[in-house]
């Protein structure tokens, strides 16, 4: 698996995968729909899958001394590493914003506020992407566009719900600047991370099972 992951990063990584990590800094922009940061993460995975397809990567990798089912496992693990890096960078930028920005700029009028809870929402959006994109892609690896369209649609529906629910009265503590209502926000963060872990694990299992049946 170590060699597979190294190969993922040395031969399959698309430049946007690193570039889009910098989009975590978008949380510093006042009144911006910060959820799109996680859409761009999905876009970079789409580029990785597209480049891998054009490079004949899957057939090449399957000829190496590994089990066929390890191929999706490595691809999803590499994506998960990038996603975790994105979440960490986003959390770091949020911490900077919470300490350096005046309080009136900490409440986001265009979507969810950048706080602890937002990282939980981000994790959930990334998990939803993994759960939809990878099993679809690895059931027919020549198809990259359709899985991306489906996963993006799911992400945007979820983003829509998150933005809409922001105006609900019960939501006020979640939208507040840190460290207020930390308990609720931490709960949202942990639920988001748990959902991310669960959805990614299911995506791995489904992708491995489906990829074994694929003819390369």
């Amino acid at each position, binding site marked *: 698996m170590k060699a597979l992951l190294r190969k993922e990063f040395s031969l399959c990584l698309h430049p946007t995968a690193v570039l889009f990590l910098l989009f975590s800094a978008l949380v510093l922009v006042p009144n911006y729909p910060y959820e799109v940061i996680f859409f761009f993460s999905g876009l970079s995975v789409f580029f990785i899958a597209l480049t891998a397809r054009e490079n004949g990567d899957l057939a*090449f990798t399957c000829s190496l001394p590994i089990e066929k089912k390890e191929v999706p496992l490595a691809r999803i693990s590499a994506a998960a590493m990038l996603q975790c890096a994105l979440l960490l960078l986003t959390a770091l930028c949020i911490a900077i914003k919470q300490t350096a920005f005046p309080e009136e700029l900490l409440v986001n009028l265009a979507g969810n506020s950048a706080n602890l809870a937002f990282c939980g929402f981000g994790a959930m959006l990334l998990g939803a992407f993994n759960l939809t994109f990878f099993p679809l892609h690895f059931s027919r690896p020549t198809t990259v566009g359709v899985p991306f369209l489906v996963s993006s649609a799911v992400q945007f529906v979820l983003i829509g719900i998150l933005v809409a629910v922001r105006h609900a009265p019960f939501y006020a503590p979640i939208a507040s600047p840190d460290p207020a209502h930390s308990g609720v926000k931490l709960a949202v963060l942990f639920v988001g991370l748990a959902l991310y872990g669960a959805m990614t694990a299911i995506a791995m299992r489904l992708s491995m099972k489906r990829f074994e049946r694929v003819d390369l």
Partner: protein
Amino acid sequence: MKEMNSYALEAQALKKDYPHFMLGPLSFSIEAGTIAGLIGRNGAGKSTTLKSIMRLISSEGTVKVFGKDFSEDEGAVKELIGYVGGGFRFYPNRSLSAIAKAVAGFYPHWDGEGFKRICEAYELVLSKKVRELSEGMKIKFSLALALSHGAKLLLLDEPTSGLDPLSREDFCDTLLALKEQGVTVLFSTHITSDLMRVADRILYLSEGALLADEPLETLMKRYRIAMFSSAEEAASAQAVGVKRVKDGFEGLIAGREGREATLDEIMIHLEWGKGEAK
């Protein structure tokens, strides 16, 4: 003392169903240290057979490599194999050194110095990108990768397609040198002249079925080409795949009459014979 497995490759009831094509069930074995040629016309199932062996496609049947069952220890079995699927068409914008570095990590017995030596012998420039290589050089690069991890069995899918005659000769020289080192080779081709020079055994595929699986010498001795003045005469001589030629009719016969048949002619007449039978 433990006896070494005399077969490099054993395939049992290898079968793959497509909506419009069925491969097998095929059963065959390749002796260790020999070169076997997988021949057949386009679409006969040569690539499907090799992909089934490598489990690149989901197929039925069992495959053993040097006695090790593929399905029981896929990773370990693949370590013994060097698979070249029709030239090197992967990562066109990557340098050879970058690809070799990534590949080396998968093999505990990777011989870095050996890889450099082979690349020098093949005149491969490691800083070059894959897209800058000619078809012949791409095949040489694939072979360099396979040989540097100590592959004992080479599975080559149409390695000589797209090569000029001189490069094909070079390739055949390489195979013969590998055979001397004890490497077993199974390679598919429709260029039968290459096989005449290097192959010990022929596996002849037609429409997904094995039409012949025997030593090249036996196959060549079995058939002769005979000339006939009419189609009726050819039919009474039980000639196979009778076709019109400028001086009458030509067909494949068993026995000692007629002239020696080339592998190409055997293949063509057997294919025609199958068509006639239908």
